[in-house]
């Protein structure tokens, strides 16, 4: 029975160590005490501008284009980089032609910049929508998701003014909280945050791992070290005695 325990403990320890190693590489998960919050953006009044196509820079890999199209007001999108947080509006009539060039482009943000410089009026770049959001929170934080709702304040041939309107927080228990932006640069804080340290919530599993480690060390001591120490001491006693007798 103990043997089964030992095998189970060994496997658990291996799993535990592999988790620690991956936690070291990816700073997220049980052992870093943090978790990532999913953030995305929506444009609430995008349907009011049917003659435009709204595009944001995205990650290009394999067959995936390096941009994303915001289709409707329910489309929740992400900026792949914290430094490329602009939205581009194209005239729908021009977009198909631009799209071909866009698909061939290696780095879409560069293409956007060059294209808007060379073709004024065809593409309108929004102001920087960069926001300092909490990408990671304590592991026991009730927050799960944040959705930032944007509003198109004005769209002319030269200017796309997008304003941050509100943030919708979704908590672990499914409750939702809405907070309206007071200033454009500061994200309203969620009302519910973790009060206790992250490891309090993890205490039962930490205790379990602690017990597992103790049992494993004991098993190693019991089955390997103790008999080795005992037999080595017996041999030493016998050798010393033999040496003494020879004298």
């Amino acid at each position, binding site marked *: *029975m*103990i043997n089964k325990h030992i095998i189970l403990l060994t496997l658990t320890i291996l799993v535990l160590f592999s988790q620690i190693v991956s936690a070291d590489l990816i700073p997220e998960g049980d052992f870093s005490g943090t978790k990532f919050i999913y953030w995305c953006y929506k444009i609430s009044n995008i349907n009011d501008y049917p003659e435009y196509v709204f595009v944001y820079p995205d990650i290009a890999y394999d067959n995936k284009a390096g941009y994303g199209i915001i289709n409707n007001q329910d489309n929740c999108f992400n900026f792949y980089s914290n430094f490329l947080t602009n939205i581009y509006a194209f005239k729908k009539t021009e977009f198909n032609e631009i799209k071909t060039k866009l698909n061939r482009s290696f780095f879409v943000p560069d293409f956007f910049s060059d294209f808007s410089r060379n073709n004024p009026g065809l593409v309108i770049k929004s102001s920087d929508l960069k926001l300092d959001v909490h990408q990671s929170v304590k592991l026991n934080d009730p927050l799960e998701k944040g959705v930032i709702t944007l509003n198109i304040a004005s769209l002319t041939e030269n200017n796309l003014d997008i304003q941050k309107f509100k943030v919708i927080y979704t908590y672990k228990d499914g409750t939702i909280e809405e907070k309206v932006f007071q200033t454009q640069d500061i994200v309203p804080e969620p009302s519910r945050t973790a009060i206790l340290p992250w490891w309090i919530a993890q205490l039962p599993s930490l205790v379990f791992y602690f017990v597992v480690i103790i049992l494993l060390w004991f098993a190693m001591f*019991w089955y390997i070290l103790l*008999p080795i120490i005992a037999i080595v001491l*017996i041999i030493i006693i016998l050798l010393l005695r033999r040496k003494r007798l020879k004298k």
Partner: protein
Amino acid sequence: MSIIIQYILALFLTIIVEFIVIWFFIRKNIPKLFLYSVLINSFTLPLATYFYQNILSSFLFIEITVLFVESFLIMWLLEIKYQKALLVSFIANLITSMMSLLLSL
């Protein structure tokens, strides 16, 4: 945790019982006899447990093997004749195995 305590308690009881048996036959130098009992049992008990749980679940075979291994260790450590060492080992192991059987019931 209770597993650890059980193992340590089993070793402690075996050491005490075997020490008393050895002392009954060889009444000299009590600390030395106790040390020998500790060393002999620290060597045989963990290995016997391991063999019983992993390799051969025959209690009788394991006990007989332990009996012979301990008889040689007693002979060498206590510098007594093999017949006497075997007798000491036999009685000590008989008592401890009876105890372990009784405790496991």
